């Protein structure tokens, strides 16, 4: 997927970390039934500020209000109460869409179009002149690695390919702000890795990214800051490193220690009034293992990974 670099955006303003791109104030959404009676309080009094150049993660179980927040920010839903501001303007203002890219939960695209037609269509929606559009389509198809399926109708695409073309359409206008709803859902570990790499690369180009996910490792790997939602309420908000660091636990990692040395260290800890919580040999995460195997297999085809 990472064959070509996406052309970097000429940074319009110096990326001040304090520039607020998205702001919600007391944002509330209540879904009503046919008779206007409140049915579900999908989002309750959310206050958020997302700044330029950061990757912000919305984390929470299914039905916690992540997608609702994104839809409110896109103007697909209207707030029951409060405000959703994007680039300082109401989210219902169409003009903001010029600077936004959106990858929906599932790639809702016209299944009777092929990859090129799809990108061409969305390019036209940005009123792009033909030459720019052509160049951009070429770049994006390379970027998401769909060179070999560019003329196939989307109905024939696998889940992963649909995701890629969905991402390509979200980037067609080289947006400043990218909203990704469950970007890694349905992707295999390689796809997930590539998606995460791409997100990081986009950030390196100065773009702001808001992503929602219920897959914790994904959020942990890429997000600068996260908000944890549960049942429409904001439960936690902060930098990932701060949130995950357990202040009263100290962790050592060493290599080449003998059993005697380990015992001695236990003793030292006990003497200082500490308590050994755990001391063992680390395992790889399954993700790391899987990725290693694939990498190995690509390097030496036809061999089982364990036959070293």
């Amino acid at each position, binding site marked *: 997927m990472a064959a070509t670099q996406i052309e970097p955006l000429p940074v319009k303003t110096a990326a001040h970390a304090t520039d607020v791109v998205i702001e919600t104030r007391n944002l509330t959404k209540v879904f009503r039934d046919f008779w206007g009676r409140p049915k579900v309080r999908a989002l309750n009094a959310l206050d958020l500020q997302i700044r330029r150049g950061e990757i912000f993660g919305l984390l929470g179980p299914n039905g916690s209000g992540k997608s609702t927040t994104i839809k409110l920010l*896109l103007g*697909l839903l209207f707030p029951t109460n409060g405000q959703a501001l994007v680039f300082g303007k109401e989210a219902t203002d*169409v*003009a903001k869409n010029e600077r936004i890219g959106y990858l929906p939960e599932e790639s*809702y695209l*016209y299944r*009777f179009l092929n990859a090129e037609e799809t990108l061409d269509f969305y390019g*036209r*929606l940005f009123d792009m002149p033909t030459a720019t559009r052509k160049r951009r389509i070429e770049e994006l198809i390379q970027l998401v690695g769909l060179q070999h399926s560019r003329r196939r109708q989307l109905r024939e695409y696998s889940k992963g390919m649909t995701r890629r073309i969905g991402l390509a*359409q979200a980037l067609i206008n080289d947006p400043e702000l990218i909203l990704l709803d469950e970007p890694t859902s349905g992707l295999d570990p390689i796809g997930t890795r590539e998606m995460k790499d791409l997100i990081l690369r986009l950030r390196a180009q100065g773009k702001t990214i808001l992503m929602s996910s219920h897959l914790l490792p994904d959020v942990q790997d890429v997000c600068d800051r996260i908000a944890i939602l549960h049942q429409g309420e904001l439960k936690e908000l902060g930098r990932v490193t701060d949130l995950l660091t357990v202040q009263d636990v100290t962790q050592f990692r060493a290599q080449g220690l003998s059993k005697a040395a380990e015992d001695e260290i236990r003793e030292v800890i006990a003497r200082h009034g500490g308590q050994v919580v755990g001391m063992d040999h680390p395992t790889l995460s399954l993700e790391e293992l899987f990725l290693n195997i694939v990498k190995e297999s690509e390097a030496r085809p036809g061999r089982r990974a364990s036959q070293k």
Partner: protein
Amino acid sequence: MPFEHHVMTFWYWLFGDPLKIRFLDATTWTHIGFLLGALIILFLIAIGAPFVWFLMAAVKHGPSEAFYLVARAIYGGATDDLPRFSLRRTLAVARVAVQEAIRNKVLIGFAVFLVLLLFAGLFLDVRNANPARAYLSIVLTTTNYLVLVMALLLSAFSLPNDIKNRTIYTVVTKPIRAGEIVLGRVFGFMAVGTVMLAAMCAISYVFVVRGLSHTHTIKAADIKPASWKNAPPGSKEGVTSTSNHHQHEFRVEKDGTVSQTDFIAGHFHENSVTQQGAETVYRVGPNRGDLIARAPVFGNLVVHDREGNVVEKGINVGDEWTYRGFIEGGANRSAAIWTFSNITPERYKDGLPLEMNLAVFRTYKGDIERGVLGEITIRNPNPEAKVKSSGPIPFESREFVAHRFPIPRELNAAPAADGRSRKIDLFRDLVYDGKVEVSIRCVERSQYFGVAQADVYLRPSDSLFALNFAKGFFSIWLQMLLVTTYGVMFSTFLSGPVAALATAGTLVLGMFGHFVRDVATGAAEGGGPIESFIRMIMQQNVMTELEVATWMDRGIKICDKAMMGVIYALTFVLPDYLRFDTSQFVASGYNIYGDLVGQHVTAALVYFAAAAVVGYFFLKTREIAG
């Protein structure tokens, strides 16, 4: 069915007769032109719709919030969306709409059309007195209904499907405006419809021309000495062979030339005769005169009653469709007088090419073999003229056909007191200021002629039939535009099936608008929806009082009145589809004249624009993911 049409110039249609309108007198409101009517209705909608919207929003959000919401939507539409309108975006949506239509097997509609034509060919009544009319009616009506149903299905389901499949999410999060989505869809479906309609037009044309095309042969044995009255010696007459269920008669003059055949089944044939050695060969040419487009020059009609007073319309001879008024025959002053303008010798070299399409009402059978007798007088519109009128020119009425009756330049003057007949010249003696009057009377006592403005006209030349045929299809195209726009408009806030029903509802209301108005005003018996439903269920006659308790009757009447009021108001907002129907013109062989096309185009554009604006606001203010 003779040709029936209310003639109206474009400007009269547009502006009406403002001087005749009295604000409080509803009977004078018929003089309101389209422009004023449209402005009034659009003004009411422009005032009323935001107010209703405000009320609805106020219930939900409170008055101040609601006012802000409505004001912002309208202000934003005018200052933001309108100036940023992009044709490229609109056409991009149109292109996807075309692809979607093709994917949705819109071509099946085309296949249905072909199958219908095949079967029509089998079932058409070829013994019909006017097969051309039958052929033309069938192709135009079939195409019309098929295309409208297709437009309805395409337009009503597209946007709701996008919303259901959520493909709309990736579209509306781009800088596209609601108006561009609405217009793009309409353009896309119209592009598909236009291509299909053009193909149907071409196929229909071939179908009609080939279906009617035939020829006859002449056998020597069928030519016999002439038997008609005062036949010159040596002349002969003959009949052609039978084909397409008819045969023609023709004459052979004494110098050996053959006349064209008689006019049967709506056409005639040119004959030719050649000598091949000792043999005389008669040839019958192709059918002619059935596929034509008369380009009539209409005049203004004034009807006089038996005392000679000018009346609005002739007598009504019964409760039938009151297109024509009737003038009484016999020795009284009843007459129908048409005034034609721009009569110059350059234009009408050989006199007035008059053609008539009168209806006849007989109060006694008389000689049923011949028509009712009438007389034409050409009159000078100048009351001070030396020569007031020509002498009466007698004619025999012919029903259900356009009756050609050319008036020559040289006419007999009205019989003078001394009984001598003088010759007068049409242009020198009777035309005044380019105008001339044609007066028609019925001379048989107690017989009546039915007359309307379009019944007597001049026919200096014909228009091209193929062009007129295309114009007939253009009328269908305009109807398709309206159905498509309304379908897309309804689909901006209704689900697919409901939008389709609503669009179908506008079609039905548009086609039966006159009936609905009659029911609403009480002119048609049987009551409103509830009352007529009860009458149907209980099999009660429409003329009797409803057989239910008085309080119930009153309740039903009130409900009906409210419902009919709404429907009545709707008939003014929704397009009158019947008005766009020009199949009658093409089938009867009349050119669809420019003024009429102008009226249709203007009306269609106004309805299109209004519906597009309404659709825009609905889509703009709709919670897409809600």
